[in-house]
């Protein structure tokens, strides 16, 4: 029996913040530091959830609705994305398009929440987020098209059965590379954005949420963690087929794959510097190019 969908969603809900802890630990190891506890993201979330909130006098209900809507949209995507054997909780033809547009809804909420504060810094973050995601979204769609062309399916359940490792086509290895670049861009990681920077002028995602506090900030941070989980799960699904045949073991492998993705993110963050902002579109163009080559080669076969 495959792991039921509820269990998969619960796993994601519980373990998502741990991904941030893993990334941090990998970076600490690379830097020769001891690093914070793996459970630190959980402690941060609980601390935020127990606090009061400060709201700018400029803001309207949009600012307060933004964290709720964004988290709700991200959680809705979680229902659509499979992990390991057994399909997702809700599946229909073209569900990957709905998933991408739900992520756009989450982004729209945060972007509008940022603009609601009237701060030039948050406007700047909103503008960058909107622009870079306008480039990342087509790249993500291209990756899905590569998988669709190789699996001949249009549901996430079929697309994410580990085409890259289970097929003998070497060009499919390009799709996970593109997907990984999109993952870095969409989750505001180095080299696109630096979540730990201290200078507002250089931020993208962090600068948009400068004014959020208390439970609102907790919602946004938790949403970001779940979003990272979703992208890691998609990447795992694109690479890793069910290997053993035992559903529980395969599920455990898939979860391990998700954490392996997070570790990769940590490695990239440790060995790379962040790109200058005008370079970011070129990085995303690279992702598009990788996916396009993979797509054409897959079609040509």
């Amino acid at each position, binding site marked *: 029996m495959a792991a039921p969908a509820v269990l998969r969603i619960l796993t994601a809900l519980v373990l998502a913040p741990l991904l941030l802890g893993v990334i941090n630990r990998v970076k600490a190891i690379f830097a020769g530091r001891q690093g914070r506890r793996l459970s630190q993201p959980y402690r941060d979330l609980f601390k935020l959830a127990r606090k009061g909130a400060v709201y700018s006098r*400029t803001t309207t209900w949009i600012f307060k609705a933004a964290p709720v809507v964004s988290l709700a949209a991200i959680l809705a995507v979680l229902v659509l994305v499979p992990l390991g054997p057994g399909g997702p909780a809700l599946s229909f*033809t073209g569900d990957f398009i709905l998933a991408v547009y739900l992520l756009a809804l989450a982004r*729209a909420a945060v972007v509008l929440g940022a603009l609601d504060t009237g*701060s030039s810094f948050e406007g700047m973050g909103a503008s960058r987020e909107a622009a870079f995601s306008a480039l990342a979204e087509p790249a993500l769609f291209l990756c899905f098209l590569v998988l669709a062309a190789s699996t001949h399916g249009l549901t996430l359940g079929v697309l994410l059965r580990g085409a890259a490792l289970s097929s003998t086509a070497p060009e499919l290895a390009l799709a996970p590379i593109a997907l990984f670049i999109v993952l870095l861009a969409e989750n505001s990681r180095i080299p696109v954005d630096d979540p730990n920077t201290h200078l*507002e002028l250089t931020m993208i995602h962090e600068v948009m949420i400068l004014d959020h506090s208390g439970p609102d900030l907790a919602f946004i941070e938790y949403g970001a963690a779940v979003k990272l989980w979703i992208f890691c799960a998609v990447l795992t699904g694109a690479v890793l087929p069910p290997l053993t045949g035992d559903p529980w073991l395969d599920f455990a492998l898939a979860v391990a794959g998700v954490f392996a993705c997070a570790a990769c993110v940590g490695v990239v963050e440790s060995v790379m510097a962040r790109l200058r902002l005008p370079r970011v579109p070129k990085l995303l163009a690279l992702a598009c190019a990788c996916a396009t080559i993979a797509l054409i080669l897959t079609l040509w076969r």
Partner: protein
Amino acid sequence: MTLLVLALAVLAAGAAACLCAGRSRAANALGPVCAVAGCLLGLAATLSGPFGQTVSGVLPWGLPFGSGAIGLDALSRLFLLPVFGLGAACALSGRVNLAHCADDRNLGAHWFFFNLLLFSMVLVLAARDAVLFLVAWEIMSLAPFFLISFHDGEERVREAAWIYLVAAHLGAIFCLLFFLLLWNASGETGFAALAAASASGGPGAASALFLLALIGFGAKAGIMPMHVWLPAAHPAAPSHVSAFLSGAMINAGIYGLVRALGFLGPAQAWWGWLLLGAGLVSALGGILHALGQRNIKRMLAYSSVENMGLILIGLGAGLVGARSGDAWLATFGLLGAFIHLLNHSAFKGLLFLGAGEVLHAAGTVRLDQLGGLQKRMPRTGILFLVGAASIMALPPLTGFSGELLLYLGLAKGFAARGLLEQIGLLGSFFALAAIGGLVFVCFAKAYGLAFLGEPRSGAADKARDAGAAALWPLAILALACLAGGLGAPWIVSLAAQAADQPLTLYPAVAAQAPLVAGQGARILTGVALAGLGLFALVGVLALLRAALLRGRPVRAFRTWDCGYVAPDARMQYSGASFSEPVSAAVGPSVIAKETYVAPEGYFPKRAVLTVAPRDLLETFFFVPLFELIGRACDQAKVLQHGRIHLYILYILAVLVGLLLWKL
């Protein structure tokens, strides 16, 4: 059919009554009442009885050369829905917004032309005779000229109306030629006879007719490069007029194209690809130009160009699929086009009316002078937000359903026959995704800068919501946006019946189309369920947030300003800076003209940066073209010197010439 004729009669009577009412105050009541009554009757006519049923009748109207044959089928009904729905909403909104100029403007004339426009649009969509169609088409092209030039005291408005008139008639020439050639071939003017006649012509003739139809009807739809009248006319026209023109009238171009394709027999392979390519150019060009705009109404006009492009992509994909026997592509392409057309009417009407409310309250729709309106105009704000979210295709609102079907149709491109076809279809999918991302930037900017943050001018600070009477029409359209998202499966069934009409030429595809449409309906049911789940999730999380905040200190403070002590509204991000990352990525010269004078020397004095949006085609194609034509015409002035004896000599010369030629 009786109801439709009744609706036509009410609209015609309303137009006549408004003309009689003239400058009296009654005109501003009479006009909207007749328009709304006509529209409600029309809606009843459209939705009563089976949607796919074909009925026909003859208007008792002595037309020279033609007949008054009218009819209704699923295709006409589908296009009539936005005409009646948006027509009623725009009439209601216009009544309120025009009330203040009842004393110094001839509102009777305005409402005469508004009712006439509605009347002629209904006739265009119901006509089953070429002559009747062309007469109605001409009225439909002329009436907006008078509606656009409502504020004719301003030079900018007169110029915009003039550009509209020229563009409409350049397009009309091609439509006229199209029907003349068909008429020449068949000898009759009834639509059925035209379809039969053109099938007998060769492939070359059919292709020529196709190109004529594409240019003629494309000009009405605002397809690039025939789009220049849209960004000129929409900012100049009163908002309820822009809403109707953009949400309903330009649809007539798409309708004409679909009908024309029905006349031309089975398509040739390149027709579908040409439509697809034209749609991509229009959509990408439209949204890139929209990004650079600072005037909301101009931005909305360019966005209409983009949306017509999306619809054309759907039609093109449908034609490619129908031609190659690919029922999936054909059905989803056509369904996507038709559903997106309905969606566009709802959200674009809403956005234009919302922009009208902003204009009314703040006196401007320039993004750099607005801001903070959500606080000052909360109701207009939320309505505009619904429109903006719909146009960004955010689920569960209405814009998503049409785009999803377009995506789905193209996504199966990997199953197409040749490698080139596959790359073409999947490349279009990619372009569609890129367009979606740009629309996101564009409308996050439009709503975010106009309604959020601090007001950038005193006028924006003083803006207040209009009364309920003005906002009801917007609320109805916003409800339509919501209902369109959740009720998409039902709308698919309507659109599927309309898609039958263009597919009749391809029986093999038409046989499978209902099956594919059923799949589409099931997919959209899944989306609607996910949408309902999303609403529930939002509710649960909102309760959780409230519970977490209960008993905790909640304070109000000023926005975090990074230590700067005197923040100012002018320090906020502006429209040009918001779209700068995108314009830097696509090349700034595409959407705007920048002039930069850098500061120089040790004690720099003057530094200037101006960024002005411009239209590439207008700047580099139409202006030089018309200047060239103008110069050529100047050359011809040599003949027109005003000396009467030489004119007599011309006559003599021509007569002698004719005599010699006949000899």
